[in-house]
C-alpha cells in the first residue's frame, strides 16, 4: 500500500501505511422489506439499500464515501453503527462483531463510534440548551462526577470546536448554521470516540462557512487522531478531506482507491462519469471539457440483477462487451494489479 504523497495533507496522518484496521466491514447487507396488505402484511419485495459492502478503516484515516442519492452511502453508515440492524454481514471493531452485540455491550462500543449529521437544524433539539445537548452523551455514560466537572468538560469541548463557552446557556436557534454544526461536532467528540461518521456534514452550509467546518474536521483529526468515514455528494470536498475514497453505486462499492489514484487513474466507468460531471470553477477549462453524460436513470434497488448494476447505463459496455458478460456475470471488487490497494468492480476496467 502506498501512502498518499503528503505535503501535510489532507492531514499529516499517514493513513494507508498505518497498521491494523480499526474497523472492518465485511459483506454488509441492509435490506428493507416492502409490505403489502392491511391486515395480513406480507413481504412483496425488498429494497436492497446496501448489497454487499466491504471496506476497512485505519486509525487516523478518512475514508470518503461518494455516490448519488439513493446509492446507499448513508444507509451503510447507519448499518455499520447498528442504527439499522444489518440484514447480513459483519462489522468488526476491536475484536468484536457489532452485528452480534446487544444492549449494554453494544452501548459500550458506541462510545467509540459517533456520528455527525447533515442538517444542523434538524439534528439538535430546539428546546435544549447547548449545555444539555453536549452534556447528553457525557451523562449517558456517567462520565462527569459532578455538575461542576460536567460544565468544565462542556466548556472545553466548546473551545475545541471553536465556540465561545459563554454561549453555554443558549439554544440552537440562537446560532448560525455553521455554529450549529460545531455543536454537533462537539457532541460527537464528547465521548472521545475513535471513529466519527460524518454524513454530509457540510452540505447544508454556505460555501464560506463550509470551509470553516472542513478545516475544523481536519484540524481535529490531526490533533486527536480520529478516523472519519466522510459521506458527501460534493466530490470536491471529499477529495479535499479523504485519504481514500470509495465510490458507491446502487448499494455496492464499485471502486475504492487512495485519494490521488481515484481521481487521476479512475477505472470504473461510473466513477469516470461521476467525477466528470463535477463542474470546475474555471471557465476556459469548463468549456474545453469533454463531458460523458450518463443516460437513463438509476435502476430500482428492488430488482435483483445478475450482472453489473451499471450495465444498463454504461458507455463502456456498449463498446467492449461483445459477449454480454456485463449482463450475465456480476463483476467482483478486485485489485487492479497484484497487491494494489486500488480495487474496482468492472470486467473491462483496463479498457478505455
Amino acid at each position, binding site marked *: 500500500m502506498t501512502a498518499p504523497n503528503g505535503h501535510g495533507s489532507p492531514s499529516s496522518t499517514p493513513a494507508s501505511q498505518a497498521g491494523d484496521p480499526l474497523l472492518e466491514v465485511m459483506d454488509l447487507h441492509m435490506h428493507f422489506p416492502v409490505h403489502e396488505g392491511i391486515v395480513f402484511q406480507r413481504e412483496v419485495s425488498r429494497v436492497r439499500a446496501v448489497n454487499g459492502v466491504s471496506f476497512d478503516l485505519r486509525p487516523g484515516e478518512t475514508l470518503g464515501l461518494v455516490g448519488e442519492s439513493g446509492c446507499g452511502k448513508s444507509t451503510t453508515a447507519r448499518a455499520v453503527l447498528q442504527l439499522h440492524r444489518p440484514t447480513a454481514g459483519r462489522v468488526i471493531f476491536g475484536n468484536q462483531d457489532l452485528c452480534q452485540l446487544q444492549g449494554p455491550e453494544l452501548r459500550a462500543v458506541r462510545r467509540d463510534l459517533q456520528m455527525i449529521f447533515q442538517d444542523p437544524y434538524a439534528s439538535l433539539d430546539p428546546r435544549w440548551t447547548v449545555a444539555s445537548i453536549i452534556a447528553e452523551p457525557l451523562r449517558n455514560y456517567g462520565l462527569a462526577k459532578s455538575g461542576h466537572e460536567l460544565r468544565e468538560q462542556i466548556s472545553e469541548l466548546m473551545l475545541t470546536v471553536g465556540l465561545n463557552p459563554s454561549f453555554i446557556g443558549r439554544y440552537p436557534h440562537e446560532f448560525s448554521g455553521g455554529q450549529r454544526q460545531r455543536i454537533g461536532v462537539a457532541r460527537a467528540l464528547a465521548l472521545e470516540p475513535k471513529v466519527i461518521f460524518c454524513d454530509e456534514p457540510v452540505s447544508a452550509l454556505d460555501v464560506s*462557512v463550509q470551509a*470553516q467546518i472542513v478545516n475544523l474536521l481536519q484540524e481535529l483529526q490531526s490533533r486527536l487522531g480520529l478516523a472519519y468515514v466522510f459521506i458527501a*455528494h460534493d466530490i470536491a470536498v471529499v477529495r479535499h478531506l479523504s485519504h481514500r475514497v470509495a465510490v458507491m453505486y446502487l448499494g455496492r462499492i464499485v471502486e475504492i482507491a487512495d485519494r490521488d489514484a481515484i481521481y487521476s487513474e479512475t477505472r470504473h466507468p461510473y466513477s469516470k462519469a461521476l467525477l466528470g460531471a463535477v*463542474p470546475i*470553477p474555471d471557465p476556459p477549462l469548463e468549456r474545453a471539457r469533454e*463531458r460523458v453524460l450518463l443516460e437513463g436513470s438509476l435502476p430500482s434497488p428492488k430488482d435483483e440483477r445478475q450482472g453489473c448494476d451499471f450495465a444498463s447505463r454504461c458507455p463502456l459496455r456498449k463498446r467492449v462487451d461483445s459477449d454480454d458478460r456485463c449482463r450475465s456475470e456480476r463483476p467482483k471488487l478486485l485489485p487492479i494489479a497484484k497487491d494494489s490497494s486500488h480495487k474496482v468492480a468492472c470486467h473491462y476496467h483496463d479498457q478505455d
Partner: protein
Amino acid sequence: MSDPAKPLPVLELDDLRVRFKTDGGMVHAVNGVSFRVDEGEALGVVGESGCGKSVTNMTVLRLIPTPPGEVSSGTIKYRGTDLLKLSAKEIRKVRGGKIAMIFQDPMTCLNPFLRISKQLTEAILLHSDMTPDEARERAIQELERVGIPDAAGRVDSYPHEFSGGMRQRVMIAMALCTDPDLLIADEPTTALDVTIQAQILDVLRRLQAEKGMSLVLVTHDLAVVAGMCTRVVVMYAGRIVEEAPVDDLFADPRHPYTIALLGSVPRLDDPVGRHLTPIEGLPPKLAEEPTSCAFAPRCTYAFDRCRAELPKLEPDPDGRLRACFVTFKDGVPVEPVDAGGAA
C-alpha cells in the same frame, strides 16, 4: 430595438431596492441593484444564502408577496417597459410568457394532483391562441426537446412518477413552452445529483443556443457559473459587489468577497493539500440599509474608509465593475485607491 446603434438590453434593473416588514423589524433584502441582460446572453448571479439574489430575480416577475415585501425604489425594464408599473393583469401576460422562471425544487413547483399534460397546456393556452389539441402537441414537443424519453407516452403522468432530474426537465419544458426570450433559473440544479446536474445544464446550454434566449442563472455554485455564463454579478448583503465577464472574474477577481469565495471552495483540480480559506464571521442581518461596506467586518483588507463609507459599483479603468476601495491585481491587493493603510 428602436436605437440601431445600441440594441436595448432584454432586461435592465436600475437601483432596485426591496425590503420586508417582519416581526423582527425591517429587513433590507435588496439595496440598490443594477444590472442588465443582453440579447442571447447568459448572466450568472452568484452569492450565498440571504444575499438577495433570489429576491432580486423574483421581483423581476413580481413574485414577491406585498405586503410584507415592498419595492421601495428602482425600475425593472423588460425591453424598455417598466415591469414594476404594470397592472396585475399585464404582468400575468409577461410572467410565464416572455419571461419564464424555474426554481430549485421541482417537486414543490409542480402540482402533485395534476397531470403533466394539464400543467403544460395550461401555460400554453394562457399565452397563445392554440387549440387544446395543438397545445398538447406542443407540450409533447417540448418534453422531447428537454430529453424526456417517450414524451408522448409520459405526458399524462403525474409529477410523482418522474425522478428529480426528470421533474426538473418538466419544469424547463413548462418554462419554455411559451417561447420566452428570457429564462430566469433560480438554483435549477441545487437539489440534483452531479450527474443529473450535468444533464440539466447540458439541456439549458443547448436550448439557449437553439432559441437564442437570454438566461439569468442564479446560483451559489461558482463552478456551475463557470461552465454556463458569459458574464457574472456577485452579490453580498443585497448589493452587487463585482460584475465581470466570466473568464476575467475567475482569472482576476477584484473584490475581496469574490476572492474569498473562490478561496473557500475546494476544487476537483486543486493541487493536493491546498488550504481552504474560510470567510470568518457571518453575513450582516440587513436590519438597516448599509451605509458602509457590508463586507468590511469579514474582510481581510478593510481599512477606515471601508467602515465609514459605502463603496459604489464603479468601473475600473478597463471597464470592469466593482464596489471596493482597495485595488486588486490577480487576487492580491495592490494599493488602496485612496490614501489609507489597507492590508
